[in-house]
């Protein structure tokens, strides 16, 4: 009754036309696992009698399969400028990934901007590799049950190199502080035909929309749990999703217009979320229902 097999998704998987990378077989396996799980066992993963927990509990997270993909993409010489991403500086120096994602978003002197993981990836893929920004943006969020996008795989690989590192978003630079304050403002900003701001759904613990648990995001503990877990494997979509995807989906529920990819709006909200979640050890891929 809660949810069952989605044949539409299977159909889309089969009709997918892009050339497969090695994830497609693995995605199929993951898809199979998820279908079995969704059809038979959903209640076992719920947090209490009523709720459909946000997190799934499974020892083997299919999202792991995307890490190797992301790693290969990171080191591969690609793009019009024929470069790998090894010279990309995520804040700790070119190619230094250990713990770097745990400190994002942060101010970058080369662009004079505060960037989060996804906007920094765009910077490096355009500047170092010569990819066209609009194409990257267009493909950043993949179709459900697809092989996933390059950015999704890269974002996961890069974040996974921070696994175990506590989130440490600094607000020392004035622009970082400004981003954080803007994110806080936006979190409480109500608009649209449903009068929603983020706080209407994420302001209190133990709240649900229908049976879906809503993460409380204004408290340290609530934000910690969430900030440390993205990118995450999304069971209902059979792909790895980034935080930008999650924001898109919430904005859609809020009845707002289409959110563009990786603008300051998203960077500000991410700065607010991650800063509030400081101290939580990164553990990706997360695993969401």
């Amino acid at each position: 009754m809660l949810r069952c097999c989605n044949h539409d998704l299977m159909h889309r998987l089969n009709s997918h036309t892009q050339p497969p990378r090695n994830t497609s077989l693995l995605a199929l396996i993951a898809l199979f696992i998820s279908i079995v799980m969704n059809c038979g066992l959903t209640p076992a993963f719920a947090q209490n009698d009523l709720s459909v927990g946000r997190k799934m509990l499974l020892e083997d997270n299919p999202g792991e399969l995307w890490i190797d993909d992301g790693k290969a993409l990171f080191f591969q010489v690609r793009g019009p400028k024929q470069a790998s991403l090894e010279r990309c500086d995520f804040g700790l120096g070119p190619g230094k990934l250990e713990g770097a994602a745990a400190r994002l978003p942060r101010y970058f002197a080369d662009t004079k901007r505060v960037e989060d993981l996804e906007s920094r990836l765009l910077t490096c893929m355009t500047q170092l590799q010569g990819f066209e920004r609009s194409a990257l943006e267009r493909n950043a969020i993949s179709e459900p049950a697809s092989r996933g996008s390059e950015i999704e795989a890269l974002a996961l690989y890069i974040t996974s190199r921070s696994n175990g590192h506590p989130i440490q978003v600094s607000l020392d630079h004035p622009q970082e502080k400004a981003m954080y304050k803007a994110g806080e403002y936006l979190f409480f900003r109500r608009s649209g035909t449903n009068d929603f701001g983020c706080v209407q759904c994420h302001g209190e613990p133990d709240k649900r929309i229908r049976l879906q648990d809503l993460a409380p995001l204004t408290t340290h503990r609530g934000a910690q749990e969430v900030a440390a877990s993205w990118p995450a494997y999304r069971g209902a979509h059979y792909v790895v999703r980034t935080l930008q995807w999650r924001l898109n989906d919430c904005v859609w529920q809020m009845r707002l217009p289409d959110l563009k990819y990786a603008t300051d709006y998203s960077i500000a909200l991410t700065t607010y979320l991650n800063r509030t979640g400081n101290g939580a050890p990164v553990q990706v891929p997360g695993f969401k229902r």
Partner: protein
Amino acid sequence: MHTPQPNYPLNPPLKHQNHQLRLALFGLSLCLLLSACGYPDANTTRELAERMVLEAFSGSPTHLKRIEQDPSQQLCSRINNAPISAADASTVLETARASIQYPASGVLMGDWKIGDTLAHDGAGDRIRNGKTEATTRNGGLCQNCHGLAPGEINVGNLGPSLTGYGKLRGTDPAIVKYTYDKIYNAWSVMPCSNMPRLGATGHLTPTQISHLVAYLLDQKSPINQ
């Protein structure tokens, strides 16, 4: 080609330039140079964040209209839910009362069966890839937030349970009007509450709301069994 947007506060904005903003930014740079101000103050934060909103969304002018706040939404957006002043609260309340429109028929209590369907319909009005969701009309969304008929499990808890709502209250004209007003504009009863102003924002029509009133109040409605 995409031109990278400037970051704040040091670079001037590309779009939506106006005099005030430029002055503000100039003042800001002075502040930064002198490092003497409690940067960013509330006004600066609002200006920066509002500009982010303008740059973040795409779509038709009708769609983009949704990111603009009306005066009540502005008053009801309070960082960390800071308490609202009594004067502002009564402005919101009065504005909400004045917004309420009734069905041309004058009938506030419609058909509970239609209301039942509406109350359980969470669709409508959402925008993806520049298109508004294709439905004949928007759902009521009540199930997302409220307990409804007894024994229904798939219900949210952002609002109080409405199970037995009409059984407790009867169908006196006063309660019918109260219920209609509440659904049409929740802020006419409780300013700035988390419940959307479903009629006032145009999400639901007056006739739809009359059906929802019947769903809540009609003694035959499943919610009152």
